[in-house]
């Protein structure tokens, strides 16, 4: 007999869907099916059961092959590496719980590390802009119940946040939006005709990298000031029409993604998008929200924020927290060769950093804590497999609108596999011994 675990939280993207149902075998060991999740979320649950999963730490040998080692040896190597390093980089944190992040930061403070999360290659520039000009935001519940103007700027939720539109932003019937998507006007700004653009009422096929100009043009149109005939590839009339649509709503929201954060101008694009939101509040109620990728990247920013005052790129090597993206951010540190050890947890810089940074990780003493085999684990000196947070161990996570949600445990991890919290706690304890003068 199998049983169904309901109200499971999906640990894939920042939408953090909380209505997943997972069918597990009677002994609670095997996941048989996953309901309600998107294709990516379902794959994440099912992959936890993969027969070829790595269940013990592996140390890289000089010839490139891997040798299985015990968790004790893995703890020893990690603690020694961090203890000996002058300025280690502790990167990742976005696919693990806030509890693990908190212990990790304790370690970072002890050894004088730089702590950075995946925002550094995702919404880091957003965080810079938010610190510069603030952010008028709201929760996804308010979007569902109130928003009748939805703008997706430089993001493609059909592919990156597959259930975002059906749960919160376009299709659901809310208290004041009881006709679902027919109550809403959807505007998409993207240089490609994305699948999200295909279901929008208005698509602005902006010239790639010209978001700043188009944002400015909308702000000009709102003020009824003169515009050039074409801005960023968009004709004047279309811009004026778009500004009218935005103005005439009761509650609007701009969701934005990598299109603005990773194109040139970066944080300035977001400054301008937030300023457009502010301008729109002269006419109606408008909010803006970042489409966060990893399910707990928001949580990592939160925990770093409470503990050190900054949301990413926190340099603790001088004994106090410093923050200066461009200087204390992972890619800059790696490319300049300023760190002498790398500890990775809950992310995959090997696949998602530019190759010049990856080459640097491969040269250094490195530990990767990850349940999967990834390009990072295959270039790190030590790979420590752990239990999946949100599948095999519970923990606190933050949704993209900064709402904390407790992820649930669905099945037991394979026998003997540690959780992130257990592994970090043991490394922390061993570091205490080393620092007290022990061997």
């Amino acid at each position, binding site marked *: 007999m199998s049983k169904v675990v309901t109200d499971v939280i999906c640990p*894939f993207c920042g939408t953090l869907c909380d209505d997943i149902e997972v069918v597990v075998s009677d002994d609670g060991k095997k996941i048989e099916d996953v309901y309600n999740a*998107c*294709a*990516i979320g379902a*794959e*994440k649950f099912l*992959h936890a059961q993969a027969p070829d999963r790595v269940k013990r730490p592996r140390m890289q040998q000089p010839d490139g092959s891997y040798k299985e080692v015990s968790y004790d040896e893995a703890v020893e190597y990690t603690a020694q590496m961090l203890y000996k390093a002058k300025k280690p980089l502790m990167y990742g944190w976005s696919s693990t719980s806030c509890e693990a992040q908190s212990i990790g930061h304790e370690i970072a403070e002890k050894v004088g590390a730089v702590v950075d999360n995946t925002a*550094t*290659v995702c919404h*880091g*520039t957003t965080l810079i802009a938010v610190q510069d000009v603030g952010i008028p935001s709201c929760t996804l519940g308010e979007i569902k119940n109130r928003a009748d103007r939805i703008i997706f700027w430089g993001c*493609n939720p*059909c*592919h*990156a946040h*597959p259930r975002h539109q059906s749960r919160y932003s376009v299709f659901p019937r809310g208290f004041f939006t009881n006709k679902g998507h027919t109550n809403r006007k959807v505007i998409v700004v993207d*240089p*490609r*005709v994305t*699948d999200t*653009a295909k279901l929008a009422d208005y698509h602005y096929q902006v010239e*790639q*990298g010209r978001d700043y100009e188009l944002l400015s043009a909308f702000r000009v149109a709102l003020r009824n000031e003169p515009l050039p005939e074409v801005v960023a590839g968009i004709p004047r009339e279309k811009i004026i029409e778009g500004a009218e649509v935005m103005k005439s709503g009761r509650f609007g929201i701009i969701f934005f993604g*990598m299109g603005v*954060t*990773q*194109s*040139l101008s*970066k*944080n300035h694009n977001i400054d301008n998008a937030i300023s457009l939101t502010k301008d729109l509040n002269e006419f109606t109620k408008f909010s803006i929200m970042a489409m966060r*990728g990893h399910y707990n990247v928001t949580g990592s920013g939160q925990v770093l924020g409470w503990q050190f005052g900054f949301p*990413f*790129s926190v340099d603790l090597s001088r004994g106090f927290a410093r923050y200066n*993206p*461009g*200087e204390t*951010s*992972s*890619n*800059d540190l790696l*490319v300049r060769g300023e760190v002498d050890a790398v500890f990775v947890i809950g992310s*995959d810089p*090997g*696949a*998602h*950093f*530019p*190759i*010049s*940074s*990856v*080459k640097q990780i*491969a*040269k250094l003493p490195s530990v990767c804590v990850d349940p*999967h*085999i*990834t*390009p990072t684990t*295959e*270039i790190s000196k030590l790979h420590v497999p752990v239990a999946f947070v949100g599948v095999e161990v519970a923990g606190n996570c933050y949704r993209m609108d900064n709402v904390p949600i407790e992820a649930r445990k669905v099945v037991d991890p394979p026998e003997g596999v540690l959780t992130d919290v257990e592994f970090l706690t043991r490394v922390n304890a061993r570091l205490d011994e080393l620092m007290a003068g022990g061997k």
Partner: protein
Amino acid sequence: MAKLKLNLITGRTIHQGVAMEGGKEKDAYTKACGIIEMDPSDMKKLGIWKGTNVRVTSEWGSVVVKAVEATQGPHPGLAFIPMGPWANAVVNPKTYSTGMPTFKGVPIEVEPAINEPVLNSIQLVQKKCRGEA
């Protein structure tokens, strides 16, 4: 041999997401991300068929991927490689004092590379780190 200059952007696709969660060492990940989505008109200009292997070169590196027709188009002049090690072999690592590498808007040159294989993610990263490929 024909060469074509394009503007590269990178990003997520649902295939990339599913393959990534299914295991980055698996073939499905290479099939989902070791590709370049091109506008049909650009493929014609380059004189290649759908499914031809091409070499993508930028100021920062070079990689072999499979050319496929963009499903989210048309967008002449623009190329798309899903986020992953193949895209990251050629993106602009400069952060311009923001911490964020420039993953979108990378000038690239594409040329047919019919006899060169598309490496899987692990081989690609390991070879690049050893100074090969």
